[in-house]
């Protein structure tokens, strides 16, 4: 099974302008009604940069302006103020789409097509020749694990399968920049883990990823940098490890200590005028526990849990 690795620092300089994939300058969006009256100020003066090779997370509660930001970057909406640039071009420039892959928050696909037809259709939209389309579709169907459902119409797919074919269509053109809107929505824990592993693998291949989610654990697991939005405003922007670091608390992980040694550590902290906050055994995450059980069940089918 693939494992989730810790985010790594992008290997590029953030000051080099050619390494900026997305840039927003004073980007704002006001939704208006038919008569032009202001309804919602969805985004206010957003200034962010997404740099080549990083996984950038857009974080925020519902209605915080995450999806609006993505839609503005993709040219699905036009800004009320400011501008958004993707690959140095205006976000409304169709040419930029050659290098972009987009997975919407729900997989908006034609339900009467099957997986092969879907990938063939999107491949054609990238002007790909037939042989390349077939090859690429085959690779992606294998990658997202839809081999046995490739000829079924999408209307017969489960939500997880729909998500996977959605991801496959986003990758059909081997994009340099991938926009993933709530990529783990609708996926079970295994699917979620696979999606996160895939995102990390894609970064290792040099792709830049913009991830929009309100699943905090997902963002923490995969993102290099995050922007936190609330009520259309940027509240925080920075590296995940830096933002999460509690500066005045020291964490020590040790193994095989006896009670006496533990007491000595406590005394040492007291003598150094420090405050002992907690000393106990760490717990694993529910995700790790679940995956361990499933993995074990796969290896030894038929074994039942004993209960506790």
């Amino acid at each position, binding site marked *: 099974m693939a494992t989730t690795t810790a985010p790594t620092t992008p290997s590029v300089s953030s000051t080099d302008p050619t390494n900026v994939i997305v840039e927003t300058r004073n980007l704002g969006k006001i*939704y208006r009604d038919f008569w032009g009256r202001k309804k919602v100020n969805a985004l206010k003066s957003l200034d962010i940069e997404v740099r080549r090779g990083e996984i950038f997370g857009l974080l925020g509660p519902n209605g915080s302006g995450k999806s609006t930001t993505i*839609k503005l970057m*993709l*040219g*699905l*909406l*036009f800004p009320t103020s400011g501008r958004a640039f993707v690959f140095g071009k205006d976000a409304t420039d*169709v*040419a930029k*789409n*050659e290098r*972009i892959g*987009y997975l*919407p928050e*729900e997989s*908006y*696909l*034609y339900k*009467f*097509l099957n997986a092969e*037809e879907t990938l063939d*259709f*999107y491949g*054609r*939209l*990238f*002007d790909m020749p037939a042989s390349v389309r077939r090859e690429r579709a085959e690779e992606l169907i294998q990658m997202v694990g839809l081999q046995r459902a490739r000829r079924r119409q999408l209307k017969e797919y489960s939500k997880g399968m729909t998500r996977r074919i959605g991801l496959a*269509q986003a990758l059909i*053109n081997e994009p340099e920049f991938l926009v993933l809107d709530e990529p783990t929505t609708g996926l079970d824990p295994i699917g979620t883990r696979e999606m996160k592993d895939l995102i990390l693998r894609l970064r290792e291949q040099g792709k830049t990823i913009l991830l929009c989610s309100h699943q905090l654990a997902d963002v923490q697991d995969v993102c290099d940098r995050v922007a936190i939005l609330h009520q259309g405003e940027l509240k925080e922007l920075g590296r995940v490890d830096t933002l999460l670091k509690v500066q005045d608390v020291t964490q020590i992980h040790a193994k095989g200590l006896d009670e006496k040694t533990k007491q000595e550590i406590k005394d040492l902290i007291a003598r150094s005028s420090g405050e002992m906050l907690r000393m106990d055994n760490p717990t694993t995450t529910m995700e790790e526990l679940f995956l361990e059980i499933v993995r074990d069940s796969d290896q030894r089918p038929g074994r039942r849990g004993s209960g506790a």
Partner: protein
Amino acid sequence: MRLSPEQFWTYFEWMFERNALLQGFLLVLILAVVGFVVGFVIALIKHGPAEGFLQVAKLIRELFVVDIPKTSIRRIGAIARLAIKEAIRKKVLVVVAVFIVAIMFAGWYLDPQAQYPARLYISFVLTTTNYMVILLGLFLSCFSLPSDIKSKIIYTIVTKPVRPTELFLGRVIGFSAVGTMILLLLGAMSYQFVVRGVDHKHEVVAISADGGTGETSIQQFHSHTFTLDDSGEGVTNETKGHKHIVTKSGDKIVVGDSTGDLEARVPIYGSLRFTGRDGEENAGLNVGYMSEYQKYIEGDSLSSAIWTFKDLRPSSFDKELTYDMTISAFRTYKGDIVTPVGGVVVFRSMDGSVVSERFPFKVKEFQVDQRSIPLTGLKGFRNEQPADLDFFKDIAPDGKFEVMIRCQDRSQYLGMASADFYFRARPMPFWWNFTKGYISIWLQMVIVICFGVMFSTFLSGPVAVIATISIIVLGFFGFFVDGIVKGTTEGGGPIEAFIRIPLQSGSGTELDLGNVPLEKSIRFVDKAILLSVQVLSQAIPNFIQLGTADFVAYGVNLFGGLLSRHLTICFGYFLLTGIISYFFLKTREMAA
């Protein structure tokens, strides 16, 4: 069927001499100016004057410099294929099933005893197909894009390198392909329906003692009489729009298949002018009918109707020169409506030096009078001396000549229009004329699809349907608006008509409110409204003109020139709707 002169203009004549190109250019220019002004005003409100102007200029530049050159055939093909799959999986073939049901039960509502059954069957299948295919095009084109926008599937399309031009072209081509498939199926079934419907065999049931005449059995509510010549060949009389060839082999007389009911006559028309009783040219007489379609010539005078033909070729004819006349008579004798009015036809060279003998005729009212003259051995006069003439050598050496008709009876009048006299060249096959009729329907369908797709770029599905239906209705009734504006249709404009209803004022009288300034104001506002509607109706397709069912039904070959004109008109609307769609797709927020 009455052909109007503009229906037999050549393509070149229509395009350049009748200013179709100029009109099209002006229409595009007006729409471009209006589009630019509207676009600029919107951009001005949003971005201010300088930025607004730049935005509009950028949009126009992108159309010609970026989006048209970078339009990809493969992407258009992808969207078109998708449209086809979508239509098929949405069970569009139900249309074919409905059509099959319609023709299965056609016997319930088509009168088998009609005078011209073939005409009835052809009109029925063409009209039914026309309406079905137009409705199909309407619903396919209006709902597709709004449905993609509503279901947000459009997000995954426009975030690919898909250009607005491709969205429009892909959909128009896809839906047209679906419509074409349906039309081919309906056409094949219709053809079989017509051919089988008129197909029948007669037996000989009576024969005269000398074997020269006889009578056939009754089939499909009619029978024929026939005559046989000495060589044992003959023809029946014409009943229900057809005849049968009758042949005698040995003792047996065989009645062949019907002829003349499924035909495609190739008429060759000339231009008509009149002369008065003194021989001077005039516009023809009006005998008091409201319709001025036909003009009249006076009997027993120099008054004549003269057709000039400019391009009659020997290759179009066999041994005879066949011509059809649909001449009407206006009688001034009281009490005698039985005695036919007579006239003569004369063929003459352009300089008048060679003239054929006079061919007298009696007017067959409300019927096509078909006659023939020999091409060689034609009696006539050369420089006023009797001579045997060769038609194409002596009268029409370069294809140009004149035909003159005079009325022989004093105080009687003969009426005719330009299309009432024509030569019949070698006929075209019926199936080809039938196919051309379907091409006309196809063109109408494509126009409806273009408008449907255009409206769907900025309206929701149901509203786009209503907008497209409005275009179709205006297209069918644009002549009515035209009539009101020109004053030929009574009753006034919308406000005047609205006032007349409660006042129960007849449309034939002047509106009288007892207040002259008020009446003038109403007429002024009405005029402004009607002129606006007229401009609009000029910009929308005239479906009456585009319909050619009558040509096929009445067995007249659909001229290549007319079909080419319709094709050009269709292409014009395709360009117009494409450009409008482009600007709407380019300026709308797909996620709004």
